[in-house]
């Protein structure tokens, strides 16, 4: 088993498309069952949701507030999982409920440690 991180990217929501509290509660429940499934399979390592606002620091050390004009999407959260290989990790990531929203995406990366074989 190798460790992978799943980054969830959210298309910045326009005011017209703001989901209602009721819809957001449904999203939360979808997340919960997704995560519950990963936990049940013994593959969940950990994860966090992230605030919508943030700071960006560039090479010249100038600090600016997010949202991040250059990137249309912002990272909404991440989880890390254990998976057999990239295909296995991608299959799990493909079930992420954030993908129900148009414009959203997830990114899967393998975490490298010092004892890494490849």
């Amino acid at each position: 088993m190798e460790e992978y991180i799943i980054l969830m990217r959210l298309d910045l929501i326009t005011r017209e498309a703001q989901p209602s509290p009721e819809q957001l509660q449904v999203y939360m429940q979808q997340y919960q069952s997704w995560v519950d499934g990963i936990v049940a399979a013994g593959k969940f390592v950990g994860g966090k949701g992230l605030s919508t606002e943030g700071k960006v620091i560039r090479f010249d050390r100038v600090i600016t507030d997010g949202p991040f004009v250059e990137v249309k999407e912002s990272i909404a959260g991440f989880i890390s999982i254990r998976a057999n290989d990239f295909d296995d990790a991608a299959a799990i990531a493909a079930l992420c409920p954030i993908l129900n929203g148009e414009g959203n995406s997830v990114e899967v990366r393998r975490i490298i440690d010092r004892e890494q074989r490849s």
Partner: protein
Amino acid sequence: MNLDARLPHLFRTEYRKIVSVLCRTFGLKDVETAEDIASETFLTAAQSWGIEGMPPNPTAWLYTVARNKASNHLKRSGIYSKQVMPEYSRQYNSPAEFKDDLSNEFFEDSQLRLMFALCHPSVPAEMQVSMCLRLLCGFGVGEIADAFMTDKENISKRLLRAKERLRNLNVSLEIPPTDQLHARIGPVLTTIYLLFNEGYYSNSGDQVLRRDLCLEAIRLNTMLIEHDVTNVPQANALMALMCFHFSRFDSRMGVEGEVILYDDQDVSAWNADWVSRGGFFLQRSRQGDSITSFHLEAAIAYHHAVAEPDKWNNILHLYNQLLQINPSPVVAMNRAYALYKVAGPEDALAALEDVSLSDSHLYHALLGQLWSSRDDDRARDHFLQAIAIARSPALKVALQKKLDQL
């Protein structure tokens, strides 16, 4: 921790607490900022609670996130306004503090203030109802559109215009002092009643949504009654009226979603709990010295909600009184129905001679019924018009049945 199954509307319930406090912070000149911050707060919650489970105290969690976002926003807009728009800054940059108070009293106080502001007499009624659904009930634009059987774009525009109106009026967020209360509570109660009627009579086939609308109206009215200043007899009368009506909510629809007209309803399915609740508020509404339209309508609704031998006589009496203080065609039409039950179709038809409500399906349905067995052609004609006007398929089916019985 999994989401507790007993909290089906947790987000909606929490949203209205948070958004009312945010509105209190930013004032009605900046409702959009309050909405944006509330929206982001719940988006963050959905993501974070979805991954890690709900925190032990969701309200406190949301409140803290919203407060941080609000203070960030004020800091940023403060810098912006000082550097870019000194004039704007002088005028507007005096935010109320985001109090460190998580008590129910504070949230309810914030919601009541918002209720009076949104139902300001200078804001048109349909805007008031939509704004209340959005900010006081936590409905989304799509849900409001479903309730009014229109599209989202329409509702968005309506909300936008309402916000503009509120901004220009510069309405303050306060519970009116006692000397102004009488004038200000009228529109609030009217809006609550409209909201209730939207749920009770709406053409929308979505039974769950309609039920929610009725319960929301009852909840808003409960807040008024639980507050010392706003607990006026008229508010209790409206509450009684809604409780009596609501007791028959489920019996008005059959298992296949078809409308069951009053005479065909199963009396044993009328909910006695709601009737006795209504009775309690009707009793309390009698403490005042004036009889309002709500008082009479509540009494009429009471007689509809119970099985009694002299029902229609009592109802007719009350309609006679109601017609004196509210001489509208709809009241006259409803009175004619009671008259028909008491004295027969002849008298009812005579009473309807001066009433014209030709765009109401109820009017044609009543005329259809009154003419049937006397002049089947005229009866058929009215039933056909009623079917043509009725907007919900379920209602059309119920009317078609009447037509077929001729």
